């Protein structure tokens, strides 16, 4: 299996490729829908929503990804790539997104009571593999026998995802100031992560090996 990473000409794609390389997972950058040919699509995320969504649309990735999800292709979004899966983002003056996740991307400072405008740094992370099964996420590639991950992950964002309904599909950011925002979201063949697994050292590698 070769993982397709959407290449919009922005973002830290090579960081993601380096992480996958360490896990012996093959990946390639894809900059057109014609070249997409994998059961897993990765949406990397360093950037601003306006430009990001604009480039997805101009290259036809928006409709392709929506259809791919219906065909059981796994779609994994990281940070901005997670936010673009929601219905709407408040960034860049307000942007209509892909609508694959029942939720909205809000500005942190608009939701938090303690005037938190940005969230940069590391937070504790605990992940139980059984969540994937509970939420209907299928992984045929068993790269690790571990069932739990306990470590820390790296965040760098000013906007975050709030799912519309509370459910066990979403794990909250373990920080009392911003715990209404989602850290990780799983629903069938969609996974979204607000943190950067490709920059979360050992914990990030463990998580990628568990979900890919």
């Amino acid at each position, binding site marked *: 299996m070769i993982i397709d990473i959407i290449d919009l000409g922005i973002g830290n794609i090579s960081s993601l490729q*380096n992480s996958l390389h360490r896990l012996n997972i093959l990946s390639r950058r894809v900059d057109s829908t014609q070249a997409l040919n994998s059961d897993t699509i990765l949406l990397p995320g360093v950037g*601003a929503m306006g430009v990001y969504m604009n480039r997805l649309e101009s290259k036809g990735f928006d409709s392709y990804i929506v259809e791919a999800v219906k065909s059981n292709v796994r779609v994994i979004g990281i940070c901005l790539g997670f936010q673009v899966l929601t219905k709407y983002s408040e960034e*860049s003056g307000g942007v209509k997104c892909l609508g694959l996740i029942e939720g909205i991307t809000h500005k942190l400072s608009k939701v938090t009571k303690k005037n938190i405008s940005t969230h940069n740094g590391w937070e504790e992370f605990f992940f139980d593999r059984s969540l994937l099964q509970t939420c209907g996420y299928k992984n045929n590639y068993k790269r690790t026998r571990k069932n739990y991950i306990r470590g820390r992950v790296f965040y760098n964002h000013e906007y975050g995802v709030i799912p519309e309904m509370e459910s066990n599909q979403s794990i909250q950011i373990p920080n009392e100031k911003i715990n209404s925002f989602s850290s990780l979201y799983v629903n069938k063949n969609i996974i979204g992560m607000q943190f950067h697994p490709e920059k*979360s050292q050992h914990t*990030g590698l463990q998580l990628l090996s568990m979900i890919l």
Partner: protein
Amino acid sequence: MRIGATLLLKNGFCYQSYGWKLLRPLGSLQNAVDHLEEYCIDEIAIIRLCRNNENKSSLMADLKLIKDLDCMTPIAFGGGLRDIQTIELVKNLPIERLIFSSSFIEKNQKLLDYAVNIFGNQAIISLLPLYLDDLKIKCFCPSLSKDFEIDMEFIDSLSNEVIIYDIKNEGNFDGFEMKILEQIKIPTSKIIATGGIGDLKSRQLYELGIAATYIDNTTLHREYSTSYFKVG
């Protein structure tokens, strides 16, 4: 509070500097980054040393090094990001954040807006090379190689975080001038302090609630694990 480190990059090699003047070679970029990862650093700021003497071939060589970097620790990159063409060149690098110095000091709003539009506001860091002279803050502008007045309001409005770089005390163990912070009109939660940060200053800065400290010289010269600095 995050514990990070700065790596200065010049002609393909990394250096540590003392007082913004003396340079001590550290070897290749990958080697230095590997060491910092081994010491469990939270983030790394890679800064190219270019003041008013930037040349294109040196820039391209440095960008190639960054592009080939294999690192699982968050990277912020800066040094010579002074025009749109250079911003275009760094779009695909394995970095998460950009560091601007002269552009903030000279209030180059057009360039900063361009960077925000592509990378997002969360990725924009300003670096202020400061020192205290007669109890007044002075700011050194790298592109002009001279002191320059700074507009704190402008810097605060456009930067996600601000690196306060005490250039006089850089390399001086625990020499960071705390009085600089008293005069900086930027929320402490946005401040990254560097330049003479030892364990004592690190604890004082933690009490103030700043975002991060960069303890570069301490980490690399003494081969310390960063766990000693991780208070709280």
